[in-house]
């Protein structure tokens, strides 16, 4: 059983939704990334989604664009991200790590070389934002041969046929993009999300995560009520940005914020942070 599978199985048994927390590797500085990952886990994250910096993050909003720019000022490469996961794994063998990024850096490394290096480092899943299933015949077999889960996006614009085809190719979990827009956008339409998640769950036994637009404890708790995973990115990254000059305060604030999300999702805290 893969780390992602056992993570979701365990949570399902407890009747809880997973908290998937995103940071961009190398933001604000490569020296802080490992500590940030640990802070996410201490705060109660079940899965870490680690952004791989790319110069042209077409699907990301301004908050994550700036995070990527901060990381790229230190020339953080895909190799560096894999080295980071390897160091994280030396102390944490249970928390799944999913890489989220764009295809070009992976293509430059080579699909087979990337898949074996990622597996060796302890990566569990790979989400390549700009690689729809139609263009995945190069990378996905390489990931599968190393036991890595290809994570796919589903969107409000995905019709029933696409949902079925994508779920058939996916493993680990599927990632429902809750809004038409980029990461960090506003206007979460809960009723729309509820209906679409139900439609997806009718097609697949895979866990369904919901991301894009979850900004605080209240929205996290609401999504926890209707999906298997709550994916939070920009809301965490903007805290990192605000405290980038004060690493100790930044780590504490990120951990507190994640704790507040976790507690709200578990229904043990008022929905205000």
């Amino acid at each position, binding site marked *: 059983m893969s780390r992602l599978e056992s993570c979701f199985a365990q949570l399902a048994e407890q009747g809880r939704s997973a908290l998937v927390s995103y940071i961009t590797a190398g933001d604000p500085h490569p020296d802080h990334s490992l500590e940030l990952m640990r802070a996410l886990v201490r705060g109660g994250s079940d899965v870490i989604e680690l952004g791989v*910096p*790319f*110069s*042209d*993050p*077409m*699907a990301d*909003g*301004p908050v994550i*664009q*700036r995070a990527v*720019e901060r990381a*790229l000022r230190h*020339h953080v*490469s*895909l*190799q560096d991200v894999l080295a980071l996961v390897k160091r994280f794994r030396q102390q944490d063998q249970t928390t799944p790590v999913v890489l989220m990024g*764009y*295809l*070009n*850096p*992976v*293509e*430059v*490394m080579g699909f087979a070389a990337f898949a074996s290096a990622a597996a060796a480092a302890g990566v569990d899943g790979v989400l390549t*934002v*700009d*690689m*729809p299933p*139609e*263009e995945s015949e190069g990378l996905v077999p390489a990931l599968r041969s190393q036991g890595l889960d290809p994570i*796919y*996006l*589903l*969107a*409000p*614009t*995905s*019709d029933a046929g*696409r949902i079925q085809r*994508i779920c058939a190719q996916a493993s680990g979990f599927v990632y429902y*993009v809750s809004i*038409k*827009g*980029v990461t960090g*956008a506003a206007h979460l339409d809960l009723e729309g999300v509820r209906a679409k998640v139900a439609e997806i769950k009718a097609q697949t036994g895979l866990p369904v995560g919901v991301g894009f637009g979850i900004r605080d404890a209240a929205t996290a708790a609401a999504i926890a009520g209707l999906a298997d995973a709550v994916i939070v990115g920009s809301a965490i990254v903007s805290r990192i940005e605000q405290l980038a000059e004060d690493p100790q305060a930044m780590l504490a604030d990120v951990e507190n914020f994640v704790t507040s999300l976790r507690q709200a999702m578990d229904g043990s805290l008022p929905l205000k942070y």
Partner: protein
Amino acid sequence: MTEGISETIIGKYPDSRGHFGPYGGIFVAETLMAPLDELRQAYERYRQDPAFLAEIDKDLQDYVGRPSPIYHAERWSSELGGAQLYLKREDLNHTGAHKVNNTIGQALLAKRMGKTRIIAETGAGQHGVATATVAARLGLECVVYMGAVDVARQEANVYRMKLLGATVVPVTSGSKTLKDALNEAMRDWVTNVDNTFYIIGTVAGPHPYPAMVRDFQTVIGREARAQMLARNGKLPDALVACVGGGSNAIGLFYPFLDDAEVTIYGVEAAGDGLDSGHHAAPLCAGRPGVLHGNRTYLMEDRDGQIIETHSVSAGLDYPGVGPEHAWLKDSGRANYVAITDAEALAAFHSLTRIEGIIPALESSHALAYAQQLAPRMSPEQSILINLSGRGDKDMHTVAAREGLKL
């Protein structure tokens, strides 16, 4: 016929999912897959609709001023002492360049699809102006994304777009240039897919854009092929066009692809020289990768990050190139060469002084290569050059290179 190419190329590419051999395709986030499919279906329907095609033809004639003439540059040819040089005068089009051929086609398609809002990216501002122009005429809302660096250095075009009623949004992310404007336009599109049509300005982006923009631009090559046959009773021996994204080049080349006797040259921007690293020549000095929705040759570093490009000509200053050019290069059907800033500027002055035609700096790259090629050919042979735009927009750049301030 070049080895490795089947007898006919025209009509064979791309495949149903937008592939030109290993290049092209659709590399976008899931949210855009449905709108791209909607666009593909609409385009496939209307490209065979006589009423739609007649509407485009009428606009190209009455509004753009087509057909554009072929001009025999006799003085320049005799000074170079080799092949006869002919210019396809896209510089005479309304708005001053070939860009409008495409924006008319896409804007009319947008209207048929019931979209009320047009967005576009622009580098130097030529595509932005051509888009704002057709949006004004059709009464559509228009938003143009432009890198903040380009907004500062292309004030006149920013003002033109505003006069035409467009909103110009300066893009401050990344390198603040054309590639970042394209990212931002994609982000707008994904957010406003229901009412918005994204008019891409070149033969790049996800399928169906490279094929669709090519089809709208092939009016250049179709006219030119007939004009050369009517004038000389034979086809030109060589075609030369500049390549940034490559829309003017593919527009000229495409109708000649099955004419094996016609040698084809695409000219990239070598900037300060290919060895300097300061250039915009992905086909000559880059390698394949994935950017902006398609697989093609790119300018990138060893980590796969896209690097900043340099050319004196803003219209060629782009780190990618249309996927069909990538395929034409690998297949050997077309040759890709590069011309430096200095060589392009010299050709700019040559054409201006010898023929009384002030070319765009982009087109000057094609002229500079033709200037090298002509003396190696005989006076019975001919070279057809795409004069893709006029140089009015470049007065400040050329003057500044010569230490003058206008």
